[in-house]
């Protein structure tokens, strides 16, 4: 994937064109008619800086910085309400996730500090390392990504829940569970990375 261009002039469509061509589902986004069904359907709509509809308009307006630093791209929970209801069949969920990936690649601070980015990172670490998510490690990596003292504070605040989960066997102590043939998973992930590097 080439770096996304940053619009410099008024009516600069370079970023919009980049999104249409490079972002997953971006070609359909060109068909958005700004009806607002997506934003109205979103269960987290009121916790987003901008709803998907407005975000798409901002892409067209060349507001690359505002788009890639918004929390919208991190707050999508993949419920697919918008995708099912969109009258123009725009795959909103794919677009938001791929915009988040773009924000990571472009090194935006928000892509490192957004809570969903932190959680996604911890989740991915566990999934890639063990083939499973280990609740203790995922939460620990997530909590301590905020720093040592904040991490301790968050851990202590949730200690009671953790104890209850251990007691009811919803969480275990000891080594993390892992899948059989972890080497195969590594090979699959390596191949996926290779395909991504080649095709983008």
């Amino acid at each position: 994937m080439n770096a996304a261009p940053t619009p410099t002039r008024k009516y600069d469509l370079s970023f919009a064109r980049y999104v249409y061509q490079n972002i997953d589902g971006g070609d359909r986004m060109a068909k958005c008619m700004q009806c607002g069904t997506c934003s109205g359907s979103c269960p987290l709509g009121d916790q987003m800086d901008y709803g998907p509809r407005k975000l798409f308009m901002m892409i067209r307006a060349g507001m690359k910085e505002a788009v890639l630093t918004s929390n919208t791209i991190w707050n999508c929970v993949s419920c697919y309400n918008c995708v099912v209801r969109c009258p123009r069949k725009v795959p909103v969920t794919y677009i938001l996730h791929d915009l988040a990936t773009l924000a990571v690649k472009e090194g935006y601070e928000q892509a490192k500090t957004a809570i969903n980015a932190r959680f996604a990172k911890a989740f991915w670490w566990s999934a890639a390392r063990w083939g499973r998510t280990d609740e203790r490690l995922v939460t620990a990596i997530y909590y301590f990504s905020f720093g040592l003292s904040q991490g301790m504070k968050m851990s202590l605040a949730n200690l009671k829940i953790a104890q209850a989960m251990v007691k009811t066997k919803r969480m275990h102590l000891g080594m993390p569970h892992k899948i059989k043939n972890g080497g195969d998973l590594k090979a699959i992930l390596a191949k996926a990375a290779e395909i991504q590097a080649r095709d983008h």
Partner: protein
Amino acid sequence: MTSEGLRSQTILVVGGGIGGMTTAVEAAEAGYDVILLEKSATLGGRVAQLSRYFPKLCHPTCGLEINFQRIKKNRRIKVMTMTSVAGVEGTRGDYSVTVTTTPRHVKANCTACGDCGRAAESMVPSPFNYGMDTVKAAYLPHEMAFPQFYVVDPSVVGTPEGEKIAAACKIGAVDLAAKPETFQLTVGAIVWATGWQPYDPAKITTYGHGRVPNVITNVEMERLAAHDGPTHGKILRPSDGKEPKKVALIQCAGSRDNNHLAYCSRICCLASMKHAAYLREQYADAEVDIYYIDIRAHDKLEAFYRKIKADPQVNWIKSKPSRIEVAEDGGPMVCGENTLTREIYAKSYDLVVLATGMQSSVKAGAPAAEMDDYGFVVPHDGSAGIGSAGVASGPLDVSMTVQSATAAALRAIQAVSGVRNASEVS
């Protein structure tokens, strides 16, 4: 005038709505024989079911009356009701059309005295009122029914009630033994004027028609506002008969949506504005919210839009609502994003009217109807023997339908006469 050895110069018009009637009358008044087929018991189609037309808010009885008179007076027009096309064979100038009739169980000597209706006891859903109320099993389809004959519902045939209905007719016009019939017609040209049906609102699951109380469609609203409708013209909400004071009109319910009808149905914007006018006329304190993607009041209809827009109790909300839920008071609640203010709203209403779109009545695979991507019949020029008129060719309002039908009559005349333009006339 050349006829190119065409076997028949008769024009078959399929569908007796405003488009079909206009095609038939125009062709017949120009001197051609016309057979006008109608699937239901009376002519008039969807127009007869309207309360009023936009933009002048006059009553459809007027336009229908004139056309009924013209049909009645013209000997070249043969009307066949309760008849539909089963198959078409042949080429321009020589089509053999197979048609089937469903029995009306009332003969043409019916005087519409109403004795059979008084004798009937059981009730059947009224198709004229979209099933919102019921009629006696022997009924006149509606006040302005043309031809003015009663219909006996097949559900009472073979029952003691049926015998009672037949016995009540002093002139013996009730014929319970009538059976469906199939026969052939030979015609030179065919005009599909099959019109439209409202898009099935149950398919728009997020809008809750049939699940959320007091969510109705625009065609149901027409019946509620009509003096011969289920509420005798007073707009009352279906659940409890209360006067609706807060009403939402939702545009593009099914239209402009790749999950439903991909095209714009063209009439719904104006139809909803007309509904706002109905409501504001009946209830001085009514608040009407119109939810829209874009307002498409084209051409001369802009004036009507401005008139409704000047009303401070009609609010315009630029938004395609995402869903309709049941509010705490049990009524409908409309949810979505106002795209101008970017506000996420959830507003409760007494009544919600879905502006459902127009869907072609011609089913895929219908005999000899070439259809476009949206299921409408392609209106070929006069070199083809088969064309279309009115909404059968695409979404149109009544006045555009009449224009389209006049054009279709001309093309059909060209088809059966073999004359394409003035220079060919010797």
